[in-house]
């Protein structure tokens, strides 16, 4: 079981660091730390878990609905409904205040819990958890791989769903329904459509798809809490020569980024390999934060995990780290284009999970 394996790894890390009790916080946005220690995918309210070095896990939730769900969806976890979660957890921590207690991610904890006037002191264990979250076991990698297969299949659905006249949110509805039909409970997805007036992706709007649109999406389904992402761009109708020329830059940049992925390389090396392709074509400006956020990121229990692939991030890549490489950015001749594949760092380089061709797809106008 993945949850048990993760808990064993966490307990070992706590013992090594001399931590007696670990406090993990989560909510529906940043739920990975909590899920790592409890196996619970939180949807509503706050969740705080207390893990003992002996492996005991107590999970406090302030949503009654999620507390009921946690009772069914977790194993070997003591679930407690705690409407005043900070004070309930605080009272529990008072009982172990003599031990060394650490918390992750500490900056997200309710302020009351982290206040210096409490009887207990919470060290920051975010880096310790980040390391565990980034370095995945073979079973965790297998979950990301399965999620990538689901992403590939969902993109085929996406190609069928995009038709002139349909609104963006109707397209996303089709994809979400497909994912529920195959038993996939979670997905992160944003979308863009239009021409050179579009500078990025957002949640779906009421905008209708039109002939000639570039339609971009990031599709990110999860398997057992592990997300894998695919990024692709399509044209409604026939792609223009300018769109094809622009897209070729992204294919070259993605391939360069993937070649740069190997043990010992830094996240910065991957970003530089992608960005150098844009610079080669005089498009260096479009690799800056004015036009793009990141050139990829970690994949795992959070859809936007560490490390971020940026030229100033020096995290060293190691086997078992799962990433997406995506040189997504604006192109002055075509508009916003995305292209990205999920992969795992292997002993010799990278194994790419996504199987969807790296092409500028065309759908009927």
């Amino acid at each position: 079981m993945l949850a048990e394996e993760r808990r064993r790894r966490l307990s070992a890390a706590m013992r090594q660091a001399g931590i007696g009790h670990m406090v993990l916080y989560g909510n529906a946005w940043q739920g990975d730390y909590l899920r790592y220690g409890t196996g619970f995918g939180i949807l509503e309210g706050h969740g705080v878990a207390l893990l003992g070095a002996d492996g005991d896990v107590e999970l406090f939730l302030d949503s009654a609905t999620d507390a009921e769900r946690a009772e069914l969806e977790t194993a070997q976890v003591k679930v407690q409904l705690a409407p005043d979660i900070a004070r309930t957890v605080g009272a529990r921590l008072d009982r172990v205040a003599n031990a060394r207690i650490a918390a992750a991610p500490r900056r997200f904890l309710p302020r009351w819990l982290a206040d210096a006037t409490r009887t207990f002191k919470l060290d920051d264990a975010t880096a310790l958890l980040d390391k565990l979250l980034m370095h995945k076991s073979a079973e965790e990698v297998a979950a990301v791989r399965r999620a990538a297969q689901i992403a590939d299949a969902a993109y085929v659905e996406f190609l069928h769903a995009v038709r002139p006249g349909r609104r963006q949110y109707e397209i996303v509805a089709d994809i979400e329904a497909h994912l529920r039909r195959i038993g996939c409970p979670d997905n992160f997805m944003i979308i863009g459509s239009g021409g050179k007036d579009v500078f990025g992706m957002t949640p779906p709007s009421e905008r209708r798809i039109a002939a000639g649109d570039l339609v971009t999406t990031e599709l990110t389904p999860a398997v057992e809490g592990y997300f894998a992402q695919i990024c692709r761009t399509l044209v409604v109708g026939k792609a223009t020569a300018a769109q094809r020329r622009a897209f070729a830059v992204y294919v070259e940049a993605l391939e360069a980024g993937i070649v740069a992925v190997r043990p010992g390389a830094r996240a910065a090396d991957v970003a530089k390999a992608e960005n150098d392709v844009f610079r080669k074509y005089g498009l260096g400006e479009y690799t800056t934060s004015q036009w793009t956020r990141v050139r990829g990121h970690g994949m795992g229990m959070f859809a936007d995990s560490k490390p971020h692939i940026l030229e100033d991030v020096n995290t060293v890549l190691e086997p078992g780290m799962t990433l997406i490489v995506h040189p997504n950015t604006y192109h002055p001749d075509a508009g916003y284009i995305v292209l990205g594949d999920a992969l795992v760092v292997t002993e010799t380089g990278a194994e790419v999970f996504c199987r969807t061709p790296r092409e500028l797809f065309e759908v009927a106008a």
Partner: protein
Amino acid sequence: MRRGLIARSAVELPDAVFDARLDRVRRAMRTAELDALVVYTNNTRPAGVSWLAGFVPYWSEAVLVVPREGGLYLVAALSFRVKSWIERVSRLADVLHAPRIGLQAAQQIAAVRADAAVGVVDFDGLPAGIAEDLREGGPRLALRDASALFAPLRATADPAEIALAAKAAAIAHRALAAARGDDLNGMIAGVESEARQLGAEEIYIAAAPDLARDARFRRIEGEAAGGKTFALRATVAYKGTWVRLVRSWCDGAMVHEATARFAQAVAALPSGRGFAGFGSWLVEGCRLTQSLDPLMGSRLDGHAAPPPGALVSVQAALARDGGTVLLGAPALIGQPGEAASLIVDPLHD
């Protein structure tokens, strides 16, 4: 992570609605001698900021600053590239982008008055990192909890919010009616599709796949095997307003009888006496920034009775000889002397 429709409608939420809400908040701020109010939002705690400015983050986090005078501004961790999207879906005077939103917000407030009195809604629950950044960005700011100021204003629904809840409930009802077929995964997909096609901002679907074995709801991952009797729950958001609706598939007469008892029990709210005889029950509603906080119920030691005019979502389980029926629907708490009322028919015939 929201992936439904996030859009602003001047028909459903006209400027006058936001102005009226803001007037009430500013009156309370003046009484409390606050120079500014800070409200935090992420996709777990959107209900304060969406109520004041219409903004719902699909991802990441932000703080809304309400100065005692002048326009509302949002400090968002989302990148500058989505500024135009935020402006389209919200009613804000300005949007600032910063990785440390607490620091930026405090600096903005302190630039007007270094020792300003600043109220923070749900100060105890504010992420610790943001609280520390507020102090760093405005060392002389007097920060204090403004939950008691904000809660009574936020808890009572105005006609616009009631209309949004009714729309959310109608979406949930039509979505649950779209649960057809023989396999539970296909039924869930039908609910998901219908809700999103109708413009839901978000939908969470939970199932009690076999009521004869367990009457609790869970999220389905993988292939779900349903029993003879089962239930689905749709939690639907529409333009920042959340409701829950439950549909049970079991003996029709039993469902009708249980629904009638449920409606009677809801009518007696905020008294919980009508739920005597139910196996379990729960009333949820917005207190500060979470959309569906637990307020009253069989699992809660104490309770925070919803005030007159509050929107709530109610769930209950009723055991009968023939099995268990799960029930749930949104309701509006009546004014003193008035009954509470369901805002959608929980029955699906």
